[in-house]
């Protein structure tokens, strides 16, 4: 589409300011099953999102049809939408910041150029390694996905920004069965550097965890000391990340309302949003509104330091946007719970009777982001007298997010970036109700 023509038509019809977000993405996906390529996908798609301000309100139109013939329909629909919107929020299109950090390594050309045959053979090796690892391995599925995203943001205030990133991930799922029980191991590794895939390590870790969980049983219902593994804690945290959004706070939909600068967690808890984090495909120097992103503490030593803002919420609170205006709302770029000081072994050793939770399920349904209450299916291992004991499954762990943050008694000294986009250490909670048998 001819953007100049779109801008001119918009102006002629009375649109005050206009912004386009043009994106293109290409995808490659390969799946191996029983040693052979089972599925292979290639894709190329583009889309255009147009935002326009008419009589101080914002209309939005997104389309994958980008012929110039669409211009009138886009502009007319934006005007009609803006006319009927009666939100009290101001619509803002941003003129830009003086300085934008440069994020290194977002696009790695070597990954795109690496021969597909190499990607396929790596997956096949992985499939084989799983099958050879143990005779209890019954079923393996591995896949490789690679995406390249580029986009351009341009508006009538003269701002023009560009971003290009690529990422790949290997997902593997292994089913183990010992004749009396069947368990599933699952792993995702994300990177844009193919050298980061250490196939043998990934196979070992995923299969071992599945094998060790064979024969898992529920525990008796009562309160236990809880150690959350990195992935489990990140999963739980991801269900509540919306509470940091100033939009939810202002609309009365966050439990963090009126909590700014108050203690909401143990002083061991530090949570940051690090938009320029290395090795994350999500890293960005500007948000979807064109605001420069920045590193900030959300929770520092247990105290809530800031909400996440876009232009509209920031204006309402009389602050500057934190550069978190993404998509239709507000989101963190790379949320990270900072590492503490306790080695994992020490954490386990400190537990008299508890549960080491390796994964939680149902976070999208069993967690109430407004009340903070959650009750999630969990699995892991029983801990008795400081030692890892029998595998545990089909239990639920319940609590309230804020109460839980206050009851954090140890934070692990190693973090892991998870596929939820959240980086987390292992965390020990003093006590939580577990429901089992």
């Amino acid at each position: 589409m001819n953007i100049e023509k779109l801008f001119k038509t918009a102006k002629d019809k009375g649109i005050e300011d206009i912004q386009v977000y043009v994106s293109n993405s290409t995808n490659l996906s390969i799946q191996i099953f029983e040693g052979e390529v089972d599925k292979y996908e290639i894709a190329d798609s583009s889309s255009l999102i147009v935002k326009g301000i008419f009589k101080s309100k914002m209309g939005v139109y997104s389309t994958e049809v980008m012929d110039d013939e669409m211009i009138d329909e886009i502009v007319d629909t934006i005007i009609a939408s803006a006319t009927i919107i009666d939100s009290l929020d101001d619509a803002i299109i941003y003129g830009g910041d003086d300085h934008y950090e440069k994020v290194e390594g977002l696009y790695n050309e070597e990954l795109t150029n690496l021969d597909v045959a190499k990607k396929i053979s790596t997956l096949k090796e992985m499939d084989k390694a799983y099958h050879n690892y143990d005779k209890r391995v019954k079923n393996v599925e591995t896949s490789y996905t690679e995406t390249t995203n580029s986009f351009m943001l341009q508006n009538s205030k003269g701002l023009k920004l560009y971003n290009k990133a690529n990422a790949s991930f290997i997902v593997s799922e292994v089913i183990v069965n010992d004749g009396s029980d069947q368990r599933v191991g699952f792993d995702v590794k994300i990177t844009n550097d193919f050298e980061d895939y250490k196939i043998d390590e990934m196979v070992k870790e995923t299969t071992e965890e599945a094998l060790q969980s064979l024969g898992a049983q529920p525990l008796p219902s009562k309160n236990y000391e809880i150690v959350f593994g990195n992935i489990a804690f990140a999963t739980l945290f991801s269900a509540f990340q919306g509470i940091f959004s100033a939009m939810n706070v202002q609309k009365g939909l966050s439990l963090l309302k009126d909590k700014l600068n108050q203690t909401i967690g143990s002083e061991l808890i530090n949570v940051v949003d690090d938009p320029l984090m290395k090795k994350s495909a999500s890293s960005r120097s500007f948000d979807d509104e064109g605001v420069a992103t920045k590193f900030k503490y959300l929770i520092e030593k247990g105290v809530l330091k800031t909400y996440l803002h876009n232009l509209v919420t920031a204006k309402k609170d009389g602050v500057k946007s934190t550069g978190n205006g993404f998509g239709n709302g507000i989101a963190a770029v790379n949320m990270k719970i900072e590492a503490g000081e306790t080695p994992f072994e020490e954490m386990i050793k400190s537990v008299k009777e508890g549960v080491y939770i390796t994964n939680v399920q149902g976070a999208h349904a069993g967690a109430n982001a407004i009340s903070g209450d959650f009750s999630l299916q969990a699995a892991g291992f029983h801990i008795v007298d400081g030692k890892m004991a029998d595998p545990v499954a089909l239990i639920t762990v319940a609590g309230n997010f804020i109460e839980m943050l206050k009851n954090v008694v140890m934070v692990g000294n190693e973090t892991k970036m998870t596929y939820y986009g959240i980086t987390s250490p292992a965390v020990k909670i003093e006590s939580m109700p577990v429901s089992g048998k």
Partner: protein
Amino acid sequence: MLLEKKLIENLLNIGLSRGADFAEVFVEGTDSAMLQSLSGRLEKVNNNKLFGVGIRLAKKFQTVYGYTNSKNPEDLLKLAEDLSKSFNDENLTKRTPLMELEVGKRHGVKIKPSEVTLEQKVSLIKKAYKAASEYDEAIKQVVIYLNDVAQEVLIANSEGRFVTETRVRVRMMISSVAVKEGIMQTGVSGPGSGKGYEYLFDEIDIVEQAREASKMAITMLNAEECPSGVIPVVIHNGFGGVIFHEACGHPLEATSVAKNASVFCGKMGQKVASDIVTAIDDGTIENRWGSANYDDEGYPQQRRVLIEKGILKSYMIDKINGRRMNSEPTGSSRRQSYKFAPTSRMSNTYIDNGESTFEEIIAATEYGLFAKKLGGGSVNPGNGDFNFAVGEGYMIRNGKIAEPVRGASLVGNGGNILYKIDMIANNLDSARGMCGSVSGSIPADVGQPTLRVTDITVGGKRGA
């Protein structure tokens, strides 16, 4: 026509040119609108237009898929060419000439989304807002989404299949937030249909639906924390069917069965549930949320009896997994959009009526949980473990529904919960859901009568 027939034929020919034994072209043009209102004010109106073409080639079990949103014949021909290069076999499969299939266009729509003005949509939202917000003074916030979708598809394959249809759906999601003494609880109501706006304007009482959401929020505000333990649970009709959808429906999809990754593998004709359980997946129900004339491989949708009186009768099978399973497809192949290769998915899935009444089930339960409204959940198809949240629950004491409880979740295993169903009522009802899986997020209906599970793990904040 979304794409010229001549071009489609060319794409199929090129698809088969290097030894693939199956080629398919899926073309989609979708218009959708989403209106969002907060506290009665219209905050957002988002219009969205999708267009794209997905080309799928297969040889035996191996599939390749590609998509683009270019309409340009050169780009499409190149995509077909690139995909065809995955195969290398001199034995070529001959294409059958396209034959347009007409199974009778059912699921007609009276008021298409394109015929409804923004003003009409907004006045519907305001009506719902008024009813929800005035229900009780503790209702502090009402969020309403109104969503309509019109998806036009064209599906053609190398076996001569050629179908077109337009699928319309509308839905309003009402979410009420109640606040008292620093405690917040939400209640939801989400009427929707595979009809046009006649459903929301004329056929349902939107005021009643809105009040229902607020009533749930207020009830939960005054609820106690749910105790935990292993107890009998009475799961109410309608959205309660999500239990079957998650715990049994997903493992019955060929997606997991074909790869030997389901607890139901090799169980055909065997007993998998208690004798009173009959379960059906039916994509043909007139204008239902998960219905369509054709599945996304162009096969007519069907009614599939999955379990009959406790015996496993059918899986849900798509074409390629059907090859692995040596079975015919069951018209079950679905996808969110051209951005996904299709695979076996549910449509409208429900447990059929039993012989008890709702009152009898409650009266027969000395102590237990009445799960009136369930939230979402998930299942691990590998071992059948599932979980789901209880949005609105009550304790049952001495055969009567007692105090409301909140924060409960149900945890169990799909392989054995079906054996534990000991009473089924005669009040079958259904509810709308969006189901996410490998081929994207699709509208799926869930349903069941009120039924009782003899024992299930209930997780709650209050200890046992």
